[in-house]
């Protein structure tokens, strides 16, 4: 389903990803953990092409994109678009479109990108909003919602494009603790329904409960990977142990 081979990414002189390999099956939920600055977010952003890798290869479903340069030809741009459509992204800061209603936020992707019929797109959007528990907020503007509600709309917005993979980039870090559970609950249900997910998070409880596999990133490399039991109960790598010790005291 997802195959990443020797992904390398630098920002000017600083190398952030030192050659990441990653393979993931359909329906699998993978949680990325690691100290800040270890490259987990950059990895996600490379997957949906918000960052262009220096080298390496990314495959999602039937689409493969090579790193090296931003798309130059029409064909390369088309391929990049295909890859993005297969990956839905949820951001730390929600990034809802403030000038549109909640409903319009969710229908924007299908109507603009796929040219979907407006009535059909709205019907689908209402279903998705019901699924994230916000059926009654369709006519509201994002500014009228709490952070947790906004993030749930953002999830519905990404789902509206019917992605094959959902990427979550620290989806609860900007939320007050009492609002996190409503977002994590939505994510948990998604995972149970069989969505393929990559989640960057500091929510260790979520990782323990929901992840099929936990990957520990350290200094731009995958330091350790395994089931939640392996990583949390019997970490092999000294850096993993140290990281877990620090986070558990929080």
């Amino acid at each position, binding site marked *: 389903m997802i195959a990443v081979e020797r992904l390398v990414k630098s920002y000017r002189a600083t190398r952030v990803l030192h050659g990441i390999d990653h393979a993931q099956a359909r329906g699998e939920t993978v949680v990325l953990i690691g100290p800040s600055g270890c490259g987990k977010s950059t990895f996600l952003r490379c997957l*949906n*092409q*918000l960052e262009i890798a220096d080298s390496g290869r990314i495959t999602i479903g039937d689409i493969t994109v090579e790193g090296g340069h931003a798309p130059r030809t029409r064909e390369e*741009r088309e391929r990049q*678009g295909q890859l*993005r*459509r297969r*990956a*839905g*992204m949820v*951001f730390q*800061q929600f*990034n*809802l*479109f*403030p*000038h549109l209603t909640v409903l319009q936020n969710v229908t*924007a*992707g299908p109507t*603009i*990108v796929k040219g979907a019929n407006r009535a059909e797109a709205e019907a689908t959007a209402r279903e998705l909003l019901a699924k994230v528990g916000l059926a009654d907020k369709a006519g509201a*503007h994002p*500014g*009228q919602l709490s952070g947790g509600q906004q993030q749930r709309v*953002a999830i519905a*917005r*990404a789902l509206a*494009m019917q992605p094959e993979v959902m990427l979550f980039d620290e989806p609860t870090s900007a939320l007050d603790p009492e609002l996190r559970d409503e977002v994590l609950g939505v994510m948990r249900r998604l995972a149970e329904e069989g969505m393929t997910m990559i989640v960057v998070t500091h929510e260790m409880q979520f990782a323990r409960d929901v992840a099929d596999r936990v990957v520990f990133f350290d200094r731009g490399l995958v330091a350790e990977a395994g089931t939640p039991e392996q990583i949390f109960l019997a970490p092999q790598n000294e850096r993993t142990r140290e990281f877990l010790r620090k986070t558990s005291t929080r």
Partner: protein
Amino acid sequence: MSTVSGLGRRMLRTLFTATALATLLAGAASAWGAEDTLAAIKARGVLKWGADAEGGAPFVFPDPQQPEKLIGFETELAVTLAAKLGVKAEMVQNQWDQLTPALLRGNFDLILNGLELTPENQQRIAMSRPYFVYAQQIVTRKETAGLTRLEDLKDKAVGVLSSSVAQRLAEEAGIAGLKIYPGNVESFRDLKALRIEAVVLDLPIAIHYAKPDATLKLAGPAFAPGYYAIGVRKGDAALLAALNQAIEQLAADQTLQRIYEKYGVWDERQSGLKDFQAEVVEQKAAISTLREWPKYLPLLLRGALTTVELSVLAMALAVVAGLGLALARLFGVAPLRWLATAYIEVIRGTPLLIQLFLIYYGLPEVGIRLNAFAAAVLGLGLNYAANEAENYRAGIQAIPHGQMEAALALGLNRWQALRHVVLPQALRLVIPPVTNDFIALFKDSSIVSVITMVELTKVYGMLAMSTYDYIGLGVMTAGIYFALSYPASIFASRLEKKLGHDCR
């Protein structure tokens, strides 16, 4: 003892204050004329004479060989007259059609600059005996035939100098396509650019500018002779008497003839100067345009209509072109980006006046002939486009980068993300500055009178010139500008509130 001295001190102080006040008033009075102007001239040793050297040949103009030095038959006359008074002459530059108000303000002692001896002029100022006999002359292109009399020009486009005798004669003759120029040179340019068919103007100017030009000709005989005389403030009787005496002597001893021959403007008519007899001018009551508003307001409103048309069209152009420029500067490929940046910086870094001159007078030289209205819309619009582009750019850059990323992540391409996500938000942000710019453009539009557009400010100027009621007309004109721009700013703040609310 102490009370007496206290009283004495108080009296002394009062006396001192009164004396100081009287001195001040006397000083002010002398600055404002009365009979003391002649004394003031002699005291300072300098005669200040007002004139316009811009396009001022052969009257007053910079020597082509030594541009910092002024020459011309009036320059020499001023120097000669000053010498007769035992002082030096100093020219004070002033736009020609504003010479009278400037004299009344006290900017200089007298006007010596082709000022016609007419009853109209003598309503506000006193005039000396004439020093020159002028006549009106029609000038056309070489190949034009049959335009030799004022009657021939009735349905033609004709250029005249603002508030000149030619303007008055042309208006009286009912010439439909009258175009009014602030200077002498511009009308000849438009004549050659085929924008107008003829220019009517004072003979000396025609002789100087048109005679040496092979593409132009003096059409028909000169007509409607009249006199140039020196203007002074009313009440400057001593100065006027001194000037009259000096002019009479210069006419008698042929000094005038010598000066005029040097500039090629001496003719048979000038010999009449010696025998001039002044006529008594009937003084009319001052005009109050406010009291007679039904006569003046419609004229101002017609000018206001032009101002509105001009501003709305120019702003529409600016808003559309500005968006294109901003997008090119922010997202365009390399050469396009450079071009947009260069355009914005150059336009913002040069005066609007120069840009208008280039479009109106410069473009015809490369074969692009726009009428005044089109040139005005284009000039204002392209100028403001650069400002609007910077407004848009600031607005677009103020939208958080996450918005673009979220749109791209959804699968929108860059253009779709701009169009559906970034621009709608940026446009809301730029509504206040763009509206402010519209109000500014609305007021800036008065500058287009330099390319012969007659809009609100120009109408005001023309009416003020003929009625001398600067205050009454000024109140009406300012009232019209305010009545038009205030609703725009109300509308903008409502719109801003409404959109801002939607955004939240």
